[in-house]
């Protein structure tokens, strides 16, 4: 088990809202703050666009972790999208526990456009957390398909 985990490189997708978290990731870049390369970022206008089905799709397609980055409460560029996401994530986490998936595999974090350091620390700690949790139980082991 230890050996598997040492060689295990988590696959994580991050949905980042355009106005806060994506810009926070940009700031981390401009500030040259390094973090693990396991996360593939995806820009959405609002964290409210991240529906539970998309998170489930990511888990189903083998994500070891799914991260959602939104604006801080009260700061949503679209007024209230982040509140809706917060509610959705709470429900989703409950549902995940019930089907035996560690709810920590889905994580919502508020990262503002000025929080490059928070972006860095979130990416680092979340990658480490997923590394500890090990590979997702969902992924069906298949030979890698080339080409």
């Amino acid at each position: 088990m230890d050996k598997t985990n040492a060689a295990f490189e988590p696959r994580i997708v991050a949905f980042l809202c355009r106005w806060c978290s994506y810009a926070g990731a940009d700031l981390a870049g401009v500030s040259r703050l390094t973090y693990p390369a396991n996360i593939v970022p995806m820009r959405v206008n609002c964290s409210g666009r991240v529906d539970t089905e998309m998170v489930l799709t990511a888990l189903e397609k083998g994500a070891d972790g799914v991260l959602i980055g939104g604006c801080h409460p009260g700061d949503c560029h679209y007024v209230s999208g982040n509140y809706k996401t917060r509610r959705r994530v709470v429900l989703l986490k409950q549902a995940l526990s019930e089907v035996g998936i560690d709810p920590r595999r889905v994580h919502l974090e508020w990262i503002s456009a000025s929080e490059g350091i928070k972006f860095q620390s979130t990416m680092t700690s979340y990658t480490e957390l997923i590394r500890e949790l090990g590979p997702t139980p969902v992924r069906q082991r298949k030979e890698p398909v080339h080409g």
Partner: protein
Amino acid sequence: MSSPRIGVFVCHCGLNIERTVDTLSVSETLRQYSGVAFVSDYDYMCSDPGQQLVSDAIREHRLTGVVIAACSPAMHEPTFRRAADDAGLNPYLVEMANIREHCSWVHLDRSEATAKAVKIIKTMVEKVRGNHPLDPVRIDHVDKCLVIGAGITGIQAALDVADAGFEVLLVEKEASIGGHMAQLSETFPTLDCSQCILTPKMVEASRHPNIELMTYSEVLNVSGYVGNYTVKIRKNPTYVDPDKCNLCGDCEKVCPQSVPSEFERGLVDRKAIYIPFQQAVPSTYTLDERSCLGLHPLRCSECAKVCEPGAINFDMQPTILEEEVAAIIVATGYDMYPIVNLGEYGGGDVANVIDGLQFERMLSASGPTGGQVRRPSDGRVPKRVVFVQCAGSRDPENHNAYCSKICCMYTAKHALLYRHAVADSEAVVFYIDVRAGGKGYEEFVQNATEHEKIRYLRGKVAKIYQQDDKVMVWGVDTLSGKKVEIEADLVVLAMSMDPHPSTRALTKTLKISCGGEGFLKEAHPKLRPVESLTAGIYVAGAGQGPKDIPESVAQGSGAASKAIALLTQDKLSHSPETVSIDEEICGGCGVCVGMCPYTALSLTVSGVAECNEVLCEGCGTCVSACPTGAAQLKNLTDFQLREMIEVALSDG
């Protein structure tokens, strides 16, 4: 539909990307990827030849979509969309794959970064594969601009927009316009009298036919979108009719209530009914209801009794005004870092430790001492004054981490003016280092140190306390390495600049952001310094970050020119990446209607949802809530996202 022919353009960004991402190998990998018809890499894709390369490839290879693998879309998305448009490709078929900010700049391992870059690019190829050509939504706009804050920045912005022929609504929270600049004595490095250069502008702003001035007013609510914002403003009651008030001042004489004067920084008191300063605009008295005995004829009403023109009206009510504006300029300015936070320097505790603005009032000819430097404790003329720079600035452990930028200059000015005002005086300045970047600034400081006999001590002050009649200043002269103990008559703290306390709440109202320090956040720190990330909302002045008068004025004009550029457009463009409803599968449940923060969605008579694309901002919250998938965000549909997720998680 014919099969997609997507072009991928990989930018080296000099070495910025190339150093950690193997662009050659990335290009090779992408060449094998389905749907990709053309791949090229180049040193600087954003340069003229780089853009030409993209345009040429679009034409020659009949590309149906383009992915630019380079920097953040916040940087060059508009650049490449324009280039594509010129080459005849719909701009909404162009996407940026951010392999710089999100990849090469944040990873050290070349193979890891290269693998991640490939994944990022592939997700964007998948997005482009599903994108459709779109046309911007054209919208009408009103012809008015709102300026929030009427300090020098807001006044300049308002005048510029008004001079261009557009209506301006200038809103100020205080009873008079003018801001902090009205409090200053003389300005560095030219020593112009601050009021002399400011008051003509204040008067001009108040008399300009295109400017509607609203003082003692606050912005309560903002809704709508660029070109058509609806703002709700509350005008607080001044209880004095400005048209009737003839400034005789009789009311002030009989008012029994005294409170510290805000304008005079508490050096003297004002009455509950007062005029902030003699040149105030609008030129009228204001009855401050918080300090008044009770706004009731039975309780006091001394002022009303003596007011000959009958200008005082205790029954005045707040009025709420609703206005439509196309653009908003936010110029909320700064406030001094509270002196009470500097307990180690006797702030708020030792009467003869004052802040820079208090010293300005003392030096000002119109100030409470008529321009004479006097100690607050006993009114004596101080013979030795110690000036402490960086009070509350550049101190990440205890106070503000940032440099307040203007303090080095105004301290040199304070010391110089003090030396001129008081014969046989001694001025000592404690500094960390002197930052005098600006036209004529260094020369000004040099003159102060060489010819005005001002003693500059390099070092930080450890402690300031009262001893008998004196103020003791303990510090270290770091150049000689010796402890310094100075017996001063007066200490002036060059306090740090804070964003105005109202800034944070206002940014929430406007849905724009402020940085960690609370200053207004600009769209880009270098290239878009006066724009917020919200279209049609601009930021300017010391509310955006510490700055001096010329910079504030320049930003005011800069923000005004942005607003004018918007106002002069016949119609505005609105992003077409909005929500569409597939009527075939819409069940008419109406869940989306409740989700929309912009009331863009409604149910039609035939029982299906409908999206007003002018109102839709494209957040996609309704898409996430739609149980059937009928609501989709154009060019970021569920289908596209699924494809993107799949490739992001794939092995290859």
